[in-house]
């Protein structure tokens, strides 16, 4: 109950400031430009597939959008002092963390589902070909749980500092590194345990399965575990104020 109240407030507060509008508009605009123009784009590829779209979304989400959304969650409240007001109300610390997580994740999901305009308009309204809807659905499923993990990472980092800027950069860099594994570092050129390890933590290779239309329980468990661990970490960081 308290969790939902906090989540609701958090979600609304994005719409009270320009953040939500800017993030959603700019993301959709950039996504459109990239999708239709970069490397020849959608029409050059000449296939009724959105895999090109899903190739860009996780990177943009993880490295820019989610850090922007999560950077203020706890850091800003600590800096401005509103956290004390919130925590001294009859709420438990884990409700605060969960509420904030749900609020921020809610905004990311809103953005994510706004991108569904692409398949709906392209293949529903303008009929640009017959879309194989299976991979699109699994890709969205993958992005949903991927964004949960990314938001919880951002929330955890935000709860460690009082500075939004630091929270933003740390989250962005961490997400970038996690994406780097598997794109810039070519996994196939490596061998043995290192290859195994890198492809294990790589967000890209995890998401690649979903985009190809495979739902792999291991991937789901991977992202869910990251989410749970980071939420616990954020909870611990919030509790820490009592003792230090």
């Amino acid at each position, binding site marked *: *109950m*308290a969790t939902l*109240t*906090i989540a609701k*407030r958090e979600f609304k*507060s994005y719409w*009270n*400031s320009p953040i939500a509008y800017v993030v959603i508009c700019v993301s959709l605009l950039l996504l459109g430009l990239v999708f239709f123009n970069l490397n020849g784009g959608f029409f050059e590829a000449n296939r009724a597939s959105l895999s090109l779209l899903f190739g860009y979304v996780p990177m943009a989400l993880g490295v820019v959008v989610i850090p922007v959304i999560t950077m203020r969650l706890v850091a800003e409240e600590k800096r*401005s*002092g*509103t956290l*004390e*007001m919130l*925590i*001294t*109300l*009859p*709420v*438990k610390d884990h409700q605060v963390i969960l509420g904030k997580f749900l609020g921020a994740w809610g905004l990311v999901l809103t953005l994510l589902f706004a991108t569904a305009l692409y398949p709906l308009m392209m293949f529903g309204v303008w009929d640009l070909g017959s879309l194989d809807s299976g991979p699109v659905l699994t890709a969205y499923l993958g992005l949903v749980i991927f964004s949960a993990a990314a938001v919880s990472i951002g929330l955890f980092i935000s709860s460690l500092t009082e500075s939004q800027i630091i929270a933003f950069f740390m989250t962005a860099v961490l997400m970038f590194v996690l994406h780097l594994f598997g794109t810039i570092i070519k996994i196939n050129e490596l061998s043995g345990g290192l290859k195994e390890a890198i492809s294990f933590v790589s967000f890209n290779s995890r998401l690649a399965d979903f985009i190809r239309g495979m739902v792999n329980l291991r991937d789901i468990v991977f992202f869910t575990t990251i989410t749970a661990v980071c939420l616990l970490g954020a909870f611990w960081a919030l509790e820490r*104020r*009592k*003792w*230090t």
Partner: protein
Amino acid sequence: MIEARDLTKRYGAFRALDKVSFEVKRGEVVGFLGPNGAGKSTTMRILTCYLSASAGTAKVHGHDVFDEPLAVRESIGYLPQRAQMYGEMGVLEYLRFVAELRKIDSNAFKKRMGEIVEVCGLGNVLGKDIHTLSHGFRQRVGLGQALLHNPPILILDEPTSDLDPNEKAEVVDYIKEIGKDRTVVLSTHNLSEVEAACARAIIISRGRVVADGGIDDVRARGGRVRYVVSIDEKRVLESGGTYRENSSMAPKAGQVEDALGGIDGVLSVVETPSDDTAHSFVLKGTRSTDLRAEIYSLCVQKGWLLLSMNREVQRLEDVFKTLTRGDDAGARGRTLADDVDEDEDFDDEEEEAREDEGDDAEEEDDDDDRDASEDDEDGGASDDDDDDPSEDDGKKK
């Protein structure tokens, strides 16, 4: 209602609270006084379960702050220092948010809002965003959210800081009004507010309770009285029994000061600023004597024109100054090393405390090292001061 026993809070080697014990009974309005950094906010944060004490216990409304934080928070209304609220929210929206978290249903909320709007004077700002409000109104909204669930206990941390004098007076009035039927603990370093609103004062200095009692008791603790005397600067008694302006005979400030200081029983004389018609002085004497007659006859004897004289029991401010002396911003809280050097009678306890923390008794050798490291920690723990280690060192020696 509130019962604190030996509350201690350490930040590393820095001791923000040192065995603070006090009790607040139902219906009392208590002023929690102390200079900045004395431990007022820390105490309040422990009472509201925002922080945990390193040692000691506290009970609020019968609930232990450590074991039942939610029950404690339900029974108190808390206004933190500077009352930070979500600026982007509207006043009504924010109060509704707080009400939801306090599980007040919407009917009860509407009814309660009527009372709150009246008591806190929020009628004109309900629709406004919080960040557009003045400090005074923000403070009122903060009071409003603290009163929303009609709590038996109200804890207000510096409710009047950052306010202009009119707003301060208003807030003090609200507190008086609110304090009629509930327990209020209010922290401040503004003494006139305590005198205006509270029946009892607890003075805390460097993490310790140094005075606790009714305002008059606390005021009497200094055991001093003050005399405020002003003497005409130009006119003196001339032959014929009239007072005339006479520049050659007119009393000089230094002369008067020396003469007043010469009276038996005067402990100190301080000149206070005044306009250029009179010299004004504040004298201190002991409570057991009354020096007014002596002061008057001195003036008569010298031919000075006494314009006014007032004997008053020492102000709370003076007691406060005496009790918290040396508590400047550079030395917030105390380090363990400070304790040992300052008060002999705490020596034994401090030794124990140190041993508890794993510092053993072979001190002489590593004393300096530890002092240095503690100075560092001191600087780290105090957040808004320009810590001067040399000052600390000087004090230790």
